[in-house]
């Protein structure tokens, strides 16, 4: 517990100290990662703790964003004095109300039907917004300017970063505190067994509405921060992509652990920031990561980390070092092979390349990994195979070894942890 606190404080210090040393591109990427982290944490209150999988959480994110844009416009035109730093409160309030209303209907059903109702509500907004100019600014959306407040001009990305960081830290802190309250415990009981809590004297529907509304409220804060950062919002914030992305972040991070979705959102947003600048295939890579995590580490990145922390005293770290290093190396080999094939295909199958071939009649060499490759040279296609086959073999060996070492030191009274090594299998990508 004390280590956890130290780790969090160290991370926080890093998040405060580092950004001024970074360029605005990275600052902006960090803002987006923080917003995604808060959104995922809010979403996970509903999914991981409440056991209600929503496919339409973009709705409450978007409501927060549009609320703030409207308020920013009013401030900009001098209609209402409202400090910029407190704007997310407005987004939170409106999202809370919308969440309570939508939650009232959605939570009447559970499982697939619940998911479909939430999806339908978000789609309703998504299709309505482009046609409702006054409210959502039509297809172009609405824009505004951040006004100075409390001595900050909010002209620079760095100031927006610190505003975002403050709100995200406070909100994630509140979401964590939530799990420690009686209602937080009741939320977990609701997830496990709704019928039982009714027979114990709790109003299950009321409980679900409150959980839904609070989740929507914090999603609204995330949306508000997005609007403040971008100074604009349009109907695309309601899109299925936004709803799907938060699901992806949450499950890659691990919905059963509080900090899982936060880790997942940060990792994937920063991954997207870096990789999307380099290749068009970033969504494919994101998809591959999602599939691998679901197959080999169903509790997500957070689950893998948690298993290690829980077992830190029982694990033979010295003996694990070699197989872990081998797994990393083998993982890199497999990753290189995959990236090579994807990038080669991306280039060779592109329209530009086809046009060049039609123009010159030649298959020109192309560049991947800072080296030129001939399309029809055997080595070009042998190279990934030479990486992939031994890579996969070594990976299997390394994980077999890791598994025996984990199993040996398991206390066999805990099924959860006993299952961990299996989840770790080939999770090193």
């Amino acid at each position, binding site marked *: 517990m004390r280590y956890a606190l130290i780790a969090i404080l160290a991370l926080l210090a890093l998040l405060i100290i580092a950004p001024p040393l970074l360029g605005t591109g990275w600052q902006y990427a960090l803002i987006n990662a923080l917003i995604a982290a808060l959104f995922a944490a809010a979403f996970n209150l509903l999914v991981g703790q409440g056991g209600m999988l929503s496919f339409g959480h973009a709705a409450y994110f978007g409501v927060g964003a549009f609320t703030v844009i409207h308020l920013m416009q009013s401030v900009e035109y001098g209609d209402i004095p409202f400090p910029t730093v407190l704007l997310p409160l407005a987004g939170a309030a409106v999202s809370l109300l919308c969440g309570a209303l939508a939650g009232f209907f959605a939570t009447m059903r559970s499982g697939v039907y619940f998911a479909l109702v939430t999806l339908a509500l978000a789609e309703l907004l998504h299709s309505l917004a482009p046609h409702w100019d006054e409210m959502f600014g039509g297809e172009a959306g609405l824009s505004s300017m951040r006004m100075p407040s409390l001595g900050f001009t909010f002209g620079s990305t760095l100031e927006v970063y610190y505003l975002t960081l403050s709100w995200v830290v406070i909100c994630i802190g509140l979401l964590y505190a939530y799990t420690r309250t*009686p209602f937080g415990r009741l939320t977990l009981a609701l997830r496990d*067994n709704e019928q039982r809590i009714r*027979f114990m*004297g709790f109003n299950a529907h009321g409980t679900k509405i409150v959980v839904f509304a609070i989740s929507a409220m914090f999603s609204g804060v995330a949306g508000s921060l997005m609007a403040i950062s971008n100074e604009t919002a349009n109907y695309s914030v309601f899109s299925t992509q936004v709803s799907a992305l938060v699901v992806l972040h949450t499950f890659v991070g691990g919905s059963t652990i509080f900090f899982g979705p936060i880790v997942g959102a940060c990792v994937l947003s920063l991954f997207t920031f870096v990789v999307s600048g380099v290749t068009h295939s970033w969504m494919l890579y994101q998809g591959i990561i999602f599939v691998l995590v679901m197959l080999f580490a169903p509790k997500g990145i957070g689950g893998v980390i948690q298993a290690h922390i829980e077992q830190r005293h029982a694990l033979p770290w010295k003996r694990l070092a070699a197989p872990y290093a081998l797994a990393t190396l083998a993982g890199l080999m497999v990753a290189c092979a995959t990236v090579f094939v994807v990038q080669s295909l991306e280039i060779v199958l592109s329209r530009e390349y086809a046009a060049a071939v039609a123009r010159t009649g030649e298959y020109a060499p192309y560049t991947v990994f800072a080296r030129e490759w001939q399309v029809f040279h055997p080595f070009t296609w042998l190279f990934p195979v030479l990486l992939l086959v031994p890579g996969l073999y070594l990976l299997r060996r390394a994980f077999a070894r890791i598994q025996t070492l984990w199993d040996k030191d398991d206390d066999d*009274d805990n*099924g959860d942890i006993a299952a961990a090594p299996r989840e770790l299998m080939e999770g090193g990508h």
Partner: protein
Amino acid sequence: MDTAMQPDVLVIDDLQKHFGGLEIMRGVDLTIKQGERHALVGPNGAGKSTLFNLISGEHRPSGGRIYLRGQRISGLKPEQISRRGLTRSFQITNVFSRMSAFENIRIGVMARHGIRFNLYRRIKPMRAINDEAHALLQQVRLDHRADNLASDLTYSEQRALEIGMTLATGAEVILLDEPTAGMSRDETAYMVELIRQVTEGKTLMMVEHDMSVVFGLCDRISVLVYGRILATGGPEEIRSNQEVQSAYLGEEEEH
């Protein structure tokens, strides 16, 4: 215990239930006295579980009335009935599997104290709640399993946890649905003792197939056959009742 002079706690009056055209309850009349242990027996399909579902609010009766201490409870929701002091356990183990044994009980204690939408206090320093949950856990002899996930408990431990959760809500009237189903002889004996201890001073109504449990534990027995009460009485009375013999007990003994 002589319960004849005790006041009526649960009164069921001409209770009917049909699903579509299918009549399950065909006018059940039953009175449970304060402090008694009352068994509900009957062949499969007699409607025992349905009767429990009707009393506890899972289903609405199609006709008739149910009174708990003179107040009508038929037609109320399960949580409303639970708050009036009647709680049930389930035939199939029905616990919060991904929470610890201690937390399972604590949720029940929260219910008893009316803590439902408390989002502004931490639960850890709530002494009364935590102490009470520990005491109950001890009462159902699971204190050594406090921190284990409910799903990691053995079957009979889970059944004991069920009963602990039912007690935790502070109910005065407890409905247990086959608490010894699927248990070995030793486990059954253990469970009977446990039920005897923890329901001391409370009113118990239970569905049970094991006749030795019924005759050993209960003060009165009602035999439910095809949606009607065939007979109600003490163990001796039921054992010697000819009608019951042919309808149920004889048939049981042949197995």
